[in-house]
């Protein structure tokens, strides 16, 4: 088998550039100002930011369609590559005000970020299990490091160790599952596996077992019940930029792979799993919803909120239609903006003492009306209140789900949980507007952070009021999955 290099770069252009960028960052770190803390960090950060933005911009030049044995660059893959690049840029933005807390590792953080982003982009183009596994491990292992990135802090290490144990175990299950899928279908390639699956009347138990084990591995990424347990702990313990990246990037990795597997690989055979997926969706919504109520720690709270969002994504996944796939793509983008804004606000308000207790945001409206407005927008969008983007995302998911009469109960239930979740989002708003500030210190917001916050807020507004371009992109991405 010969490989066509030009085709390879057509498909993996983004990844190649990211790899290059990472290497450049390492070299820069080594060359610039040895022995000083801030010099290399600033250089690396600026370079990483510029590089990521450039690659992100360049990704819009790319045309979907290139497809080869080694990978695929359909609209779906391209959509997610852009998504992951945007996530990485936003995470760098969240990390900037946090940088002094990363102390010794501040120069390496952007490099690691670039490398996980590479893994994520690779995953969105994967069309065989080998690439899937290696890409997933690249993402996961680097995230282990980023979670334990402040080894002086007990909670960061705790997050790291829990994440490692759970992540490594899920990887082991995944390999085992892949082995069974391989053994019962004779290939690692999605297209061939799909052919074997859909040629059979009923799936052999060995293949089912293998697929289930693979889904277990992906379930961990998505954070769906019963794989959600690690989320609150790791979110709480990890450094805030890592948490931000985890909450959006890692979840999206789960989404992108589950969509590939369920829609492309399993295809019509996945219809038998609808009920189970629907049940999981309901449980996930319940866990996320009830778990968030008593929380008093911001990041932990957002962890539970993330679980219930995973529930909504599962509702769409259970629906198994092109419309629902489009809804998922729309959903993750709105989630990206709302979540990143929230995490950046957390970084800013906890600046003085690194404490993320909810008291931090008490009376925020008086301390910084701008931050209060941003956080309000983001919470309302996460809660799904119109006219913010989150509302429309939920609306699209539910509209797709209603087309499936068997899922009406699930739609009703998810609406019920949406109301429940509104309760705790409103409690946050109450703290912002109706409590007196615990901490009255000056909140320093750098120009870059202000810009990022503004951007996120505008996006949440804009996609709530005018969705056309995003919906169009999402639908294009979704339809390429079903071809």
């Amino acid at each position, binding site marked *: 088998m010969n490989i066509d290099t030009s085709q390879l770069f057509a498909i993996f252009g983004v990844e190649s550039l990211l790899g290059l960028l990472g290497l450049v960052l390492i070299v820069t770190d080594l060359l610039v100002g040895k*022995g000083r803390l801030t010099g290399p960090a600033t250089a690396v950060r600026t370079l990483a930011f510029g590089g990521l933005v450039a690659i992100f911009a360049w990704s819009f030049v790319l045309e979907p369609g290139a497809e080869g044995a080694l990978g695929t660059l359909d609209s779906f893959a391209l959509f997610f590559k852009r998504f992951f690049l945007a996530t990485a840029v936003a995470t760098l933005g969240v990390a900037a005000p946090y940088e002094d807390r990363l102390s010794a590792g501040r120069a390496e953080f952007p490099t690691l970020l670039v*490398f996980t982003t590479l893994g994520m982009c690779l995953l969105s183009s994967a069309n065989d299990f080998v690439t899937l596994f290696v*890409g997933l491990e690249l993402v996961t292992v680097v995230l282990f490091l980023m979670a334990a990135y402040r080894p002086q802090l007990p909670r960061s290490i705790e997050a790291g160790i829990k994440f490692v144990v759970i992540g490594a175990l899920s990887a082991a299950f995944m390999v085992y599952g892949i082995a069974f899928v391989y053994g019962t279908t004779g290939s690692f390639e999605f297209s061939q596996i799909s052919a074997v699956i859909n040629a059979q009347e009923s799936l052999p138990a060995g293949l089912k077992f293998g697929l289930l084990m693979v889904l277990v591995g992906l379930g961990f990424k998505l954070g769906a019940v019963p794989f959600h347990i690690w989320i609150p702990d790791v979110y709480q313990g990890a450094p805030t930029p890592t948490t931000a990246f985890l909450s959006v990037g890692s979840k999206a990795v789960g989404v992108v792979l589950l969509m590939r597997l369920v829609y492309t690989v399993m295809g019509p055979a996945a219809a038998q799993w609808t009920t189970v997926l629907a049940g999981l969706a309901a449980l996930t919504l319940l866990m996320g919803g009830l778990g968030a109520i008593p929380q008093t720690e911001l990041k932990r709270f957002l962890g539970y909120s993330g679980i219930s969002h995973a529930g909504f994504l599962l509702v769409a996944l259970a629906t198994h239609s092109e419309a629902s796939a489009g809804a998922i793509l729309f959903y993750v983008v709105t989630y990206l903006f709302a979540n990143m804004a929230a995490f950046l606000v957390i970084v800013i308000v906890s600046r003085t003492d690194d404490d993320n207790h909810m008291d931090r945001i008490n009376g925020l409206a008086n301390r910084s009306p701008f931050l209060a407005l941003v956080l309000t927008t983001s919470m309302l969008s996460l809660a799904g209140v119109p006219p913010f983007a989150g509302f429309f995302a939920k609306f699209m998911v539910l509209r797709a789900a209603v087309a499936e009469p068997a899922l009406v109960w699930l739609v009703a239930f998810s609406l019920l949980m949406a109301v429940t979740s509104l309760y705790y989002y409103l409690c946050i708003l109450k703290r912002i507007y109706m409590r007196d500030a615990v901490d009255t210190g000056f909140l320093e917001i750098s120009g870059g952070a202000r810009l990022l916050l503004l951007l996120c807020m505008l996006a949440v507004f804009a996609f709530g009021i005018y969705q056309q371009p995003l919906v169009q992109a999402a639908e294009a991405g979704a339809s390429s999955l079903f071809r």
Partner: protein
Amino acid sequence: MGDALFYVFGALMVLFTFLTIRARNPVYSAIFMILSFASTAALFVMLDAFLLAAVEVLVYAGAIMVLFLFVIMLINLRAAEHDGLRVSPLVVLVALTFLLLLGRGIADLGPVPAGANELVGTPQLVAKTLFTRYVVPFEAVSILLLSAILGTVVLARRSGEA
């Protein structure tokens, strides 16, 4: 003859694995684990995966286990902290159910697997596949190893050091 060897090494692998997880002293665990991996390497040979057998011994039993031993020595646990298995009924239940499900899966593998084929895992053959069909994941692994190095260095640094 070949069949008998399978059962011998299979039994050894299970035995050493069991000893690994139940030994109270982590050092013993590590040594049993090396033996378990050596048995696996022998089984790989029986499956004609010669390159992998060598890699298994070199990387797994050699490099990875040395790393484990190194860390165990470094941490130097007090003997009082050694503990064995904490058997709980729930875990046993989970393990047995898992085994049961696995058994069901193995009993029904579908039409695809046939009899043993002529495949021999020579370095040439494996390398050819690795560097053509799987060149992308191969590059990704190199990035993975690079970031692992980068990250572990950061973690190992004491705060304040550059």
